[in-house]
């Protein structure tokens, strides 16, 4: 030992070696300037971008839960007057930093020009996605096409760019992606990668949003005074609708995508798309972009079981709004509300008979069975309106909270392209029977509904949309969109771009109850299964909805029947009475902390 010790000491005393001795390199990380080397580095980085766009089923359902189509338990603060600037904390710019860092450095990688272009397109696609979310949530925000440095006062304290400017930038990014991203099948594997068609589909979604938003909204709410649109801004409505049409046409004409439709499976194929363990393999023709979960790889959709959220009374809080369900057509293509002019009195059995096949693939109906072959009637304990969702509900009967869900999630489907195409056309008064036949007709047919090109506005729909829309085709397109895409996180966006915020805070309604304190047999198997009651004693074998009747005041959340002791259920009237819509709510407030830090970041109108 001694032999080694002295030389070792001698080395250590040699101070010239100190700086070398004190310089260490991280063995497990790459110093950033050396990262981008080749195509794999680009793939690696864009994988991170795809991953950051995380979506689980719950996000989807929760997006629609607070819309007009569904109801929820508990308070939704945003709809109350108590929501204020301090309540918004979701002003994150982390993803943009990552995207801009990528775009600034990705061309250091060595690859052929087409590959580089494709990957630049992917980066710009994600920047567009980032800004779409920001514009839809906050209106105008500062635009950055480069990484913000911690020392750059100019960038850090920049003022907001206008909505029109941002949308133009988003469109530029999307157009670049549509043009340069490859549509090659290797980028379409299991619908999980970004390619030309994903870019086109998102472009269609965005352009439809912005086109209709500019049309139905009168003013720019990002302006503290809420100034009216300039005529140019207003006129851009048409531009965006046309861009939407262009994008849709490119996808439709490519022949790459089609609707999942096997005429023999029309009663089940729609729901199958949302409960299939391997949708990314089975529905590639309809799914343009999806998130792939996999039991074999142990990649879970939910850390909690989605079944638990839909069937366990403790957590379940999803319930459809009856007013929305009325929009599902009869199979003969006529409105349900025409068949039953007294529709508010219809029974559950009537409501679920002869309807658009998507209805019985979206909610429990009399005779609904699960894998064990037993009847599963809707239960008031799980669902206050009585309309209990089954879209997304897994077939397996493991409803424990700790069970996992591996269902793949479609992020954007071809069906939406058809709907967006039809809607953009209809908004431009150009949804001809020919367009109709390419879009709405196939969707209705695969759901067992006879397609009829509309010539007369449906009274119920006119009323539903607050008498603001009378174009029969446009109304039908909206009906179709609602029915087809429900529980897919689009409804709130639709309502907002249509300027229909009032619909979001309406009292949600449930089943018609002929008489309080009377046993109900919702699955029609001869045994009572539910009851609506103002009394608290437990009812053996029955699921109870406790309501407030005749001063019983037992229902703290204020469920009531429309006529007191009978009528349709009105849920959460007490909470609903605290909900108010106002113009400012079309945009969220910018968090006060950031407005304080940067005074040029003006607050949105009304906040």
């Amino acid at each position, binding site marked *: 030992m001694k032999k080694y010790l002295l030389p070792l000491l001698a080395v*250590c005393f040699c101070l010239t070696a100190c700086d070398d*001795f004190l310089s260490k390199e991280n*063995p497990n*990380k790459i110093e*950033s300037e050396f990262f981008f080397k080749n195509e794999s580095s680009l793939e690696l980085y864009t994988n991170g971008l*795809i991953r950051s766009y995380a979506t689980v089923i719950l996000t989807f359902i929760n997006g629609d839960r607070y819309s007009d189509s569904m109801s929820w338990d508990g308070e939704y603060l945003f709809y109350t007057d108590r929501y204020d600037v301090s309540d918004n904390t979701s002003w994150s710019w982390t993803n943009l930093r990552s995207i801009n860092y990528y775009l600034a450095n990705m061309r250091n990688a060595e690859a052929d020009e087409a590959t580089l272009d494709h990957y630049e397109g992917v980066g710009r696609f994600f920047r567009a996605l980032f800004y779409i979310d920001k514009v839809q949530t906050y209106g105008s925000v500062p635009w950055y096409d480069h990484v913000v440095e911690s020392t750059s006062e100019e960038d850090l304290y920049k003022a907001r760019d206008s909505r029109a400017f941002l949308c133009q930038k988003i469109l530029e990014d999307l157009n670049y992606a549509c043009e340069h991203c490859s549509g090659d099948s290797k980028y379409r594997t299991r619908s999980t990668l970004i390619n030309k068609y994903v870019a086109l589909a998102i472009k269609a979604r965005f352009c439809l949003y912005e086109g209709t938003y500019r049309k139905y909204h009168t003013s720019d709410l990002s302006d503290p005074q809420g100034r009216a649109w300039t005529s140019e801004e207003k006129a851009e409505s048409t531009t965006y609708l046309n861009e939407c049409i262009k994008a849709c046409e490119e996808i439709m004409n490519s022949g790459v995508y089609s609707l999942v439709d096997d005429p023999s499976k029309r009663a089940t194929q729609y729901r199958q798309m949302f409960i299939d363990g391997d949708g990314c393999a089975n529905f590639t023709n309809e799914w343009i972009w999806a998130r792939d979960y996999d039991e074999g790889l142990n990649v879970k959709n939910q850390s909690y079981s989605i079944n638990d959220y839909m069937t*366990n009374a*403790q957590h379940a809080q999803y319930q459809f709004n009856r007013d929305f369900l009325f929009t599902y057509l009869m199979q003969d293509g006529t409105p349900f509300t025409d068949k039953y002019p007294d529709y508010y009195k219809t029974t559950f059995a009537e409501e679920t008979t002869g309807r658009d096949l998507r209805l019985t693939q979206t909610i429990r109906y009399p005779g609904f069975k699960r894998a064990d072959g037993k009847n599963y009637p809707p239960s008031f304990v799980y669902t206050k309106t009585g309309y209990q969702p089954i879209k997304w509900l897994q077939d397996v009967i493991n409803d424990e909270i700790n069970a996992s869900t591996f269902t793949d999630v479609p992020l954007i489907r071809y069906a939406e392209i058809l709907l967006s195409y039809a809607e953009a056309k209809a908004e431009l008064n150009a949804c001809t029977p020919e367009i109709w036949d390419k879009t709405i007709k196939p969707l209705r047919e695969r759901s067992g509904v006879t397609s009829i090109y509309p010539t007369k506005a449906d009274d119920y729909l006119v009323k539903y949309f607050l008498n603001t829309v009378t174009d029969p085709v446009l109304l039908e397109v909206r009906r179709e969109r609602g029915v087809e895409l429900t529980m897919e996180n689009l409804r709130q966006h639709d309502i907002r771009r249509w300027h229909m915020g009032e619909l979001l805070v309406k009292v949600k309604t449930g089943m018609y109850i002929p008489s309080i304190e009377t046993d109900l047999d919702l699955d029609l198997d001869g045994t009572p299964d539910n009851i609506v009651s103002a009394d608290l004693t437990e009812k053996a074998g029955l699921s109870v909805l406790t309501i407030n009747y005749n001063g019983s005041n037992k229902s703290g959340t204020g469920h009531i029947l429309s006529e007191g002791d009978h009528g349709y259920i009105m849920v959460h009237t007490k909470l609903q009475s605290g909900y108010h819509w106002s113009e400012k709510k079309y945009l969220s407030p910018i968090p006060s902390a*950031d407005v304080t830090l940067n005074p040029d970041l003006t607050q949105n109108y009304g906040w």
Partner: protein
Amino acid sequence: MTVKTAMDRLRSASGYSFVYEVGDIQTDRTVTVDAKNLDEAVRQILSGQNVTYQIKDNNIIIRKASPRSSAQQAPAKEIARGHIVSGGQPVPGASVFVKGTMNGTVTDLEGKFSLSGISRGDILTVSCIGYESTDIVWNGQDIALNLREDNEILDETVVVGYATMKRRDLVGAVDQVGSEVIGNRSNSNLARSLQGEVAGLNITIKDGKPSHNGSFNVRGTGSIGAGGSSLVLIDGVEGDLSMINPQDVESVSVLKDASSAAVYGARGAFGVILVTTKSAKKGTPVINYSGSVSANRRTVVPDAITDSIEWLDWWKTAYNNYYNYSRALLSHIDNKSPYSQAIYDEIIRRNEDPTLAKIEESYDVSGFGYAYYDNHDWFKEFYRDYHWSNEHNLSVSGGNENADYYVSGRYYGSQGVFKVGDEDYKKYNLRAKGSLKVRPWLTLTNNMSITIDNNYIPTAYNTNSVSRYMQHCLQPMAPLRNLDGSWTPASGISGYASMYEKSSYITDDYIYLRDKIELSIDIIKDVLNFKADYSYNYTGRNRREIKTPVIYSKSPGIYLETITPAQAFLKETDYDTRYQAVNAYANFSPKLGPNHTLNMLLGYNVEWSKYKYSTMQRYSFTSDKPSFSLMDGESSITAGGNEWSYLGVFYRLNYAYKGKYLLEVSGRYDGSSKFPTNSRWGFFPSASLGWRISEEPWMDWSRSFLNNLKFRVSAGSMGNGNVSPYSYTSEMSVAKATDIAIAGTLPSYTSVASTVPYSLTWETSTTYDAGLDFDFFNSRLSGSFDYYVRMTTDMYTTGATLPAVFGASAPKGNNAELRTNGWELSLQWRDQFDLGGKPFVYSVKGTLWDSQSVVTKFAGNDNNSFGTISNLILNMGQPDYYVGMKVGEMWGYTVLGLFKDQADIDNSASQSFKQAVDLVTRPGQVKFDDIDENGEIDYKNLTLDDHGDLKIIGNSSPRYNFGINLSGQWNGIGLSVFLQGVGKRDWYPGYDAGYFWGKYSRPFFYFIPTIHRQSLDTVAHMNEDNTECLNYDTAYWPRLTTYVTNGDRNRNTVLNMPNTRYMQNAAYLRVKNIQLDYSFNQKVCSAMGLAGLKFFVNAENLFTITPMHKWAPNLDPEGCWGGDTDFESDAINGNSYPMFKTYTLGVNITF
């Protein structure tokens, strides 16, 4: 040389003369004399002669020893008398014993004694606290003995950085404790024995898990930036307190101020703990064995309601009150047991008739095919009442002038707290230490140790903690097994079944190998010494986690799995740390005459460490054996690690003039690889002065009672470089996704490069310390007091808040400051008195210390924001750092009482807390103080300038720490008591603290503390129609409502935010250790052929006094702070692994 020559030389060297009768000794014998002190010299001179001697005044009196044969002739017993004085004054209370026997007495007030049963030639040992113990041969005449004063305390050798010093010469704040405080305490590791023993050394033991160390800091929070804790050096090399065998420890020295720790420069900013292991005892080999067996029992045994009917009643009320009767009761309890009115009635029926089964087949709407009617005490099912641990130690030590050795081994084994699953902990220590005098001027020492630490931890089938699952699953209705023997949902989902089947568990094994080789060269003996050492430490750790499904059943014939077989996995992580260090230093102490003492140290230190880990994980087993080779699922490997190095040059200079003016200057120049080249080096100097006032001539008047009075001041700075390596480079990592599949596989991905800090260099901690040491009455009373201020500057924290558009957290930089003020006091009294003719020797030592840290600069929080409300809640009301904040402060609401009725509510400030699903405030709920008088209970902007009704209501930092040692020895019996405690500390029960909140937290929580029993009238009682709270003025717990501590943390559930009413005072006084031992006297031992024999019993944590137990009797004031992540990860919920009372029986044998 001859004996005669030796005697003459000794006389000229020492001034001592030999007095003897000619003929008694042979003066012409040849002897070799090489001795360090007088006594040794005399013994060597007289070796081989049949004589005894006594050193008295300046004479060495030699007498002929009694012939051995006469000793065997049963000599006549006589009475010896004597008079014991010191400096002309009588010494009362001194003990006089016949050496090696229990025969003895104690001197009276005049210093006189008489002792019977003594024979001529017997040796008497005279001893007394404050005097040197003296042996004298009784030759039949009266004894007049003059005892010499002893300065044991002042002369005590204290280990300081790279050297030792006499306590009298210390000028820094240094404290040392010896093996006596570690002694026979059967603790799994050293930190537990040190807690409370050293003023200023804060040791926080969070739970009783034997593998757990506790965390420690010297003098409070040192840094809120890079953080860091005290540097622990074991025999001069960085180490971990948990790896050392407590029985190997000779002393533990704590260097508290900058002056004493300066030679450790950048590593010692937060104090240095120097552990010195036992060294070899020269001479005949000494073999020592000690062994003990201990029983461990929880310090608190949580007491819960296990009667199902009572449980269900609580559940119904809490649930219905929350929903205000708007929601029908569920048809099951959290999916673990079915519920209906019929089941409820059936439980009552079956309770009355114990012959009826507690389970039956019964189909119900809730998906169950069984109905459960049990009254099951699940707590007893999971946990043992007590568990055993045992310990065995063996050491051998010996050597001669040229070589010596110390070898020791230890085994410590313990069961765990779980009754199910065979939790197990084992630890093995081995140390071999030896030194060799190669040349008279050259010594080579090697010190090797091995520590092996093995843990087996039973767990649930997934990653969540067992305690959390227990809370959620174990309602008393549910039995262990169904009729067909399958597990019930409660057993399956709680993890009980996994533990029982041993199908899910963690093994965590450590190995520590350390070797240090040291060379010591006396270049000029006693003047210039050079030492160099090299150490290699290897720490290996292997952690395996095995999770597999368990099958359980809710209905006959239908079996469910807790997880899918595809989710079953084996995860194995190997950690590997290789650390090397070289120290080289020279000590120069020139002889400068009687008035000047000079000591210089110059040294060099270099350290480097390489750490790496790799984790392998694979899913899906094909057999019962957990092996990667027998698995067929997806696999993944991740790796990490780092490498760092330090290099430093240090110096220290001590100068003393006439032993009364003391000066010390020291410093260190340090470089670290963790900093960029331009800010890599730091220089940290310090200086201190000492003045021994008691040595001044003008203090002569005080000599009779004052032995020492020393005043010291010091100032100095040290660095802290505890940042993660490579922080200054912009880097990217690559990871494999586990949450998404892309193109059919798990993708690898990366993201944006890390941001680079504004600045990155040493944090500096500057300490100013003033202290006083004193010894009175022959060192019977001694003590010291220190006051200090420490400024930590350049702390590495987040920089000024940047607008969110930056897209990353604001880069860090050296831009925060902290000031800590504190003091330490320790006092000791030692004495002895006569008890039944035997001396009773006793001592009392008390230490008390306190410190408080205040943030004086913080760049990352310009607008003094408290952060988000959810963080505030999750941190027990502790806000983000702001300037002026005291570390640990807790903010919350002030509670005025409970609401009596609606009128009371209407007349009070309005609140919008979630305390029922409809947010309506009702009678019996908590009424808050509207401090800002705006008519509403709120927290406004949650900033220092605008915080609504929040105010500081507590502080979680431990204050007024104290330790009290009492010990007494009498007639071979020893008793010692050690009390430890904290004078001030607050704890607020977190959102899931079931042991405190019970049903107030969650409706399905199995645990309802019995203290909630309504009959105690502690819970708010409501009148019939729930409109008035009848005992609003006397009840402690509010209206029984669930989810009032739990739920949406962004919107402030009513009891989620700390408030004054439920804030718990976690101060405590704990009897940490009581020990009773009995040592057999030498005669008995010799008769058994032993050198020593001692039996002992001791108890750790025997009892505790804490105000917390008034309302939180189920929680331990030390154990509520969270700790074991294998057990419960949330720090605020009090679900730690429990603390234990330990009862030990042991023996210590020396051969």
